[in-house]
Every structure is written in C-alpha cells, then in structure tokens.
C-alpha cells in the first residue's frame, strides 16, 4: 500500500515532467500568421485549448493508473 502511494506520486511527477516537455517542444514554437492583429490572440487561444486537452489526458491517465494501482486495496 505504502509503495503504491509512493509509486503513484512518482508517476505523477514523471507525467508532469513529460507534459512539460510536450508543452515546450510542441506548443512553444507553435504560432498562427496571416490574420494581422489577431495572430497573437488566435495563437494564444489555440495554445490554451491544446494545453487544456493535455491536462484532460493527464487526468484520464492518472485516473486509469489510480484504478490499476489501488484496485486490490479499494476492493479489500
């Protein structure tokens, strides 16, 4: 049980690091052009949407992981 919780913390940490990598390498250089004054706004909104999707994916992964790690403990 204790190892399960420490393992869950460790996996959360790895997922944060990996998520940061995705954000910086994919989202960082991303930009929209050709809309004049709206370029920055559109780029920002699109980045926000992608980041929110990444957070949702992160939560789903954690949720699955939680069930996998704690399945036996919760049932017992």
């Amino acid at each position, binding site marked *: *049980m204790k190892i399960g919780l420490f393992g869950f913390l460790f996996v*959360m*940490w790895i997922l*944060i*690091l990996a998520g*940061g*990598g995705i954000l910086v390498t994919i*989202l960082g250089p991303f930009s929209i052009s050709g809309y004049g004054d709206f370029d920055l706004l559109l780029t920002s909104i699109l*980045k926000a949407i992608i980041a929110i999707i990444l957070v949702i994916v992160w939560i789903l992964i954690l949720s699955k992981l939680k069930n996998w790690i704690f399945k036996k*403990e919760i049932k017992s």
Partner: protein
Amino acid sequence: MAELIIPAIVSCIVAFFTVYLATPPLIKFLQKRNLAVKDMNKKDHVMVVRPGGPSIIAGIVTSELVLYGFFQINEILAIIITSFIAFVIGYVDDRKIMGGWFKPVALVIASTPIIFLGTYDSNLTFPLFGTVQIPALYLGLIIFMIPITGNTINSIDVLNGVASGFMIIASFSLSIALFILQNYEIAIISLPLGFVSLAFYKYHKIPSKIFPGDSGALTLGAMYGAIAIVGHVEIIAAIALLPAIINSFLFLSSMKRIVEHRQIKGKPVDHTEDFKLKATNDKTAPITLVRLILTGGPLSEKQVGCEIFKLAIFSGILAIITAFMMRVLI
C-alpha cells in the same frame, strides 16, 4: 545576498512569535464563546475550538509587512491581499455553512490582486525543457491556482496537525527550491509561511488545542499559491503539494462532483474498538488519501499523520530535485 539576511531573520521571528503568542489568547477567547467542535477521532467527548485562522493571518500580515519595510515590491502586497481575502472567505465559511461551490468560486476573487498588481510572468517554466509563453492560458492558471491550492490544503485538514504539518514541509521545500533557483527575494518572502505553520503546529498537533478551520487552511493554501505564481515556481509548487492534490483528485474522481464534507452520507473511515482508524467498505463514501493509507490495516491517528508527512517529505524531495532540473536544459 548579505543584505537579505537581516530581513529574512526578522520576518521569520515576527511570523513565528506572532502566531506562537497570539494563539493561546485566541484559544481562550474561542472557549469563552463556546466556538468548539467535537474531535471525531477521540474516544472521549473532546471538544476543540476553531477557527485558528485569525492568528495565522496575523502572523502572515505582520511578517510580510515587515518585509515590505525592507523591499517595497508589489509581490509582497499581492501575497498579503490574496491571503487576507482567502482568510475572509474561510472565516465566512467557518461562521456560516455555505454550499460546496462557495469556496472554489469565492477564491477566484482572492487571485485578482496578483493580476491587478501585475506580479506574474506569463512564461511557464518547465524542468529540462525551458519555458513556454502562454499569455491567455496563464491568466486562467492564476484564476484556478488560488482556489486549487486553498481547497487542497483545506481538504487535507482531516486529522490533528496534518494541515499545518503538511504546510511546514511543502512551504520549506518551496523556499529551498526558490533559493536553488537564486530567486532570493521571493525565497525570503516565502519563509514566513513555513514559520507561521510551524508555530501553529505547536497547538494543532495531536492532541489539538485548536483547529485552523476554513479560515486557517484557506489562508495557508492561498498564500502558498500566491508565492508559486509571483516566484514563477508553479510546477515545483504543484509537485511539493502532490499528496494533497492526490487527496483532492481521489475525492473528486470518486464523488464525480464538488461537494462539502458535511454533505457526504457515506463514511470513508471508521473506528476500531480501541479507537484506531480503519478504512470502511462503504461504496457511497469518497476515496481519500487517509482511506487508502488505512487499507493496509487500522492505524492510530498519529500513525496516519506520520504516513502523510512521509508522503509530503517524498514530494518535497521531488520538488527540490525538480528545482535542480530547472537549471538544466536539454
């Protein structure tokens, strides 16, 4: 660097002794007013006074004002105002039973001083990979961060000494990370949070003489969130807070909605005959960090608190490792 030592020492002394000296009279005042609740995890009928928020906010405001006397920077004002608004919101919830949505929604107001005083940087820094500029998203992050940190600390305030003890570990980890990142001014500004928590822990540890209440827990959490934003250490702060985040995550993913503890019918934890804590099989009860810790077998309240502190220390170490990784780019 040397000129920062005196403000650091003075503010830490002021933070610690304000709470250390203000809490006993507050306990007497609350006892006279009969503002006490039953300690559910004690065999005998033990009543504990609450809220301890007034002494916590007094420690934060006085120590940060002392620091403002040394460095006139808006970051200090943002932290003071944010913490104070969170205290007022918590105090309203302490005195009057509010709905489950009240605290998260009201705490959005607490995040506005950070925006209006312009004490944030829209670059989000990640370890190893560098920074990403997300101006629109970052404003949303500020608005969400204070309610999340405030409610996360509040949600872990379930056993004697846990919220204040957890805050000692998380805030000192954050301060160490800020020193590693050579953000010395914010590191010093963050130190009073640890010393306020340390002084309050003396009265909150098992057996508690006072509970922080919503006003205390939200103040500690909001100040932690504000430091994370003005110090540009959002990711490190989230990592140091992971056990409490897990608690909120488990709670929300099992309940599927935001709900006040008092509105929950199922009991996640029960007591054995010798009044140890044990996990229940109640499927309607939320899954919490304490319930998961207890799946290994019944433990005393003190033992569960120690398990939570071990998890907090583990997260604190991960946060400090992350701070070192911030200085490395791949």
